[in-house]
């Protein structure tokens, strides 16, 4: 639909981005100055050394005020260079380093004279961003093939409910323990979420219902139904809402790596699964026949169609697969908590939607975005312990505010697959 008269590469359309990049570079310089100013704020109030605890009794300390001085000074220098001649291909590296400095300086300010578990903060970011990764991968799989998926929330919620419900019942089956019962539940979660996803695909493809409306429908429908079943079935029969939780499954040897071991390799199977998914999904998306066709169908379905790719079938398939992934992701709640509760996902599906976009529709990008969100969330948790004097509401805002900062400052314009949201008519 969208390819019109082919044009030469240097039309304003492709120039637009680069013009913006130029402005971006200038704005970045200004941002550094502002950030240097903000860092100066860290000079006020607290002083003393912030102690960051690591594993095995190790820790490191950072003197809050000297660090703030140092960071503010470095930022000013960086700002100068940025405005003067820019960093070229190092721009993003410099930005990342600067952000890290500011981040550490901020933490030192907040924790000056106190201590907190730095490693716990990082480990918790990894643990609790897991469902976001699954949700985002599901979203990417749909949108890469041209179907907007607002229903991630509903698919996750359904996964959480079904895995808890079926998992609990299945553990009572003859010859089946709680553990194997749990995995039966996970399977059921994948199947039912895939069914809901199929419904999304069917309504959106066959009947051309606005994909956003179908997404909302599924969200409302699943929320209503699981809440109802939760109150009428699960509450009345606690046995139907009781699965084991999956404890950490420490990976031999790797778990003993200092620092990293505890953050990455003492996690549950779901965390590892999320990482495997990202790797496998990335490989499939960019290295396989399926991936090539999927991306084509999301960008320019008619081109794919004219080459004999069955656009609609591929969309069905991918959306259904995405449903299964989201179902699996939903089971994370059951694995983590051993039970279901009304609206247990509580908007995580929408955060996952944001993660898809922040990650620029790339699995690895989504992984980074999810981790970043998880990190800011656990930073907020730590802040609330450190008696910084900030109102708890403002501390709670951290992940949301920081997401905006990251998107506005680092990610900039992100553009989805061109055909996402449009129904495809083969004739």
């Amino acid at each position: 639909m969208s390819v019109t008269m082919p044009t030469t590469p240097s039309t304003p359309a492709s120039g637009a981005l680069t013009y913006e990049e130029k402005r971006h570079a200038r704005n970045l310089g200004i941002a550094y100055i502002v950030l240097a100013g903000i860092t100066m704020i860290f000079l006020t109030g607290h002083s003393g050394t912030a102690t960051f605890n690591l594993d095995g009794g190790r820790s490191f300390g950072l003197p809050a005020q000297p660090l703030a001085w140092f960071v503010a000074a470095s930022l000013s220098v960086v700002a100068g260079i940025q405005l003067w001649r820019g960093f070229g291909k190092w721009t993003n590296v410099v930005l990342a380093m600067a952000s890290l400095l500011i981040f550490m300086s901020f933490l030192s300010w907040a924790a000056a004279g106190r201590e907190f578990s730095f490693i716990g903060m990082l480990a918790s970011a990894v643990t609790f961003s897991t469902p976001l990764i699954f949700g985002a991968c599901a979203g990417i799989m749909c949108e890469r093939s041209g179907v907007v998926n607002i229903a991630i929330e509903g698919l996750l919620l359904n996964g959480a409910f079904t895995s808890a419900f079926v998992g609990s019942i299945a553990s009572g089956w003859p010859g089946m323990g709680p553990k194997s019962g749990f995995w039966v539940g996970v399977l059921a979660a994948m199947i039912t979420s895939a069914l809901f996803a199929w419904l999304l695909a069917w309504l959106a493809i066959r009947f051309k219902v606005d994909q956003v409306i179908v997404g909302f429908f599924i969200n409302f429908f699943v929320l209503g139904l699981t809440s109802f079943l939760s109150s009428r079935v699960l509450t009345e029969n606690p046995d139907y809402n009781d699965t084991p939780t999956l404890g950490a499954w420490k990976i031999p040897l790797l778990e003993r790596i200092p620092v990293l071991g505890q953050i990455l390799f003492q996690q549950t199977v779901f965390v590892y699964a999320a990482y495997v998914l990202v790797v496998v999904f990335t490989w499939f998306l960019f290295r396989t026949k399926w991936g090539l066709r999927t991306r084509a169908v999301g960008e320019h379905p008619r081109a794919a169609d004219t080459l004999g790719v069955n656009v609609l079938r591929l969309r069905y398939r991918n959306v259904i697969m995405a449903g299964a992934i989201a179902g699996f992701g939903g089971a994370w709640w059951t694995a983590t908590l051993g039970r279901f509760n009304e609206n247990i996902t509580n908007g995580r599906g929408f955060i996952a939607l944001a993660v898809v976009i922040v990650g620029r529709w790339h699995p690895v990008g989504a992984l980074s975005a999810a981790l970043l969100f998880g990190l800011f969330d656990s930073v907020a948790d730590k802040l609330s312990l450190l008696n910084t004097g900030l109102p708890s509401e403002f501390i709670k805002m951290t992940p949301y505010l920081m997401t905006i900062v990251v998107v506005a400052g680092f990610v900039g314009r992100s553009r989805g697959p061109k055909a996402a949201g449009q129904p495809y008519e083969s004739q």
Partner: protein
Amino acid sequence: MTAATVDGSPAAAPEEKPKLVVFFDRIDAYNNLLLPFLAIVSALIVGAFIIGLTDIDRLKEGDIGGILTTIKDAYIALPTGALGSLGGISETIVSATPLILAGLCFAVAARSGLFNIGATGQMFAGGMASVWVGFTMDGPGIVQVPLALLAGIIAGGLWGGIVGILKARTGAHEVITTIMTNYIAGLLTLWLLKTEAFQQPGKDNPVSKTVSDKGRLPELFFWSDDPSLRAHWGFLVALGGAVFMWWLFERSKVGFELRTFGSNADAARYAGMKPATLTTLAMFIAGGLAGLGGATQIIGTQGYATESFAGSIGFDAIAVALLGRNKPVGIVFAAFLFGILEAGGRKMQLETDIPLDVVLVLRALIVLFIAAPALTRLIWRLKSEGSTSVLQFRGWGA
């Protein structure tokens, strides 16, 4: 349009139709009334199965008659609860009012090419500003009420405008920023409600000071002294909002620019329009409408602010707008439908033992069927029509 049908003579002078006829042509009675009707019927049939299946106790007892009675009662309660009495109508209107405004908010952004999920946050902003004006001012209603509404528009507009500016300046995707600003607005509201400026004196719960009676929007059913008829002039404000949106997109210059920008940003630039300004403006107007929705909710329906006064209105409104195809008239009708489902759902909850959750499921079904005319056509074997138009947001795709 084509050589095949139109013979050479250019523009076979289209006969001048009276305005009214043109209007009804557009409404197209057949498609716009029969289809939704059948859609609701379909939804109710599917809903009946769901009610039956969720009536676990009776199902266990095999009490099919009982189930049928429940379904019958439910389906009588739904319309009578919403429209069967003045009280019901009043509640339908009360529910529809903020939905219209928040739906307009979504639609204005959508037609400008933006996917604005931020109505919730913008309602918070508008509501908080208007409640502040409402309880600090002590002037005559004729001054105070418009000022409070204006404050709502401005605050909501600014809150939405932030998203617009971020998008225009940095390219930050509005879906991300609106999701995030919703959370932020909710937290800010909670915090504000505990500050001295807002909190009710002598209380420690996060409930705002109260807007005095003269600062409230007047009652709609002013002739009745039944205090339970809560419908207020906010409804007229909402209708005014719809007229405004119609005027904006059908008559005004800015609206034409927004529409152009929403459909083809390159053409807008070529035509001398300013994309950055338009993005910001679209979000400002959208936010203003949602803010107005928040304001009517506060100085109309509630009289004070709570930490959750925006509820799920912002989200429901997306469905309302899409159902109404982002057209003002459509949105008013869709909001009414939602209002009916809400007011009727209350009676349904009361007169049968169907829980609220199932009422919500029913509502989702009705929305779906109305949004899927092709599905309804298939079920009722109506002959098919041209394809449905689908919205485009630049956020996704081209």
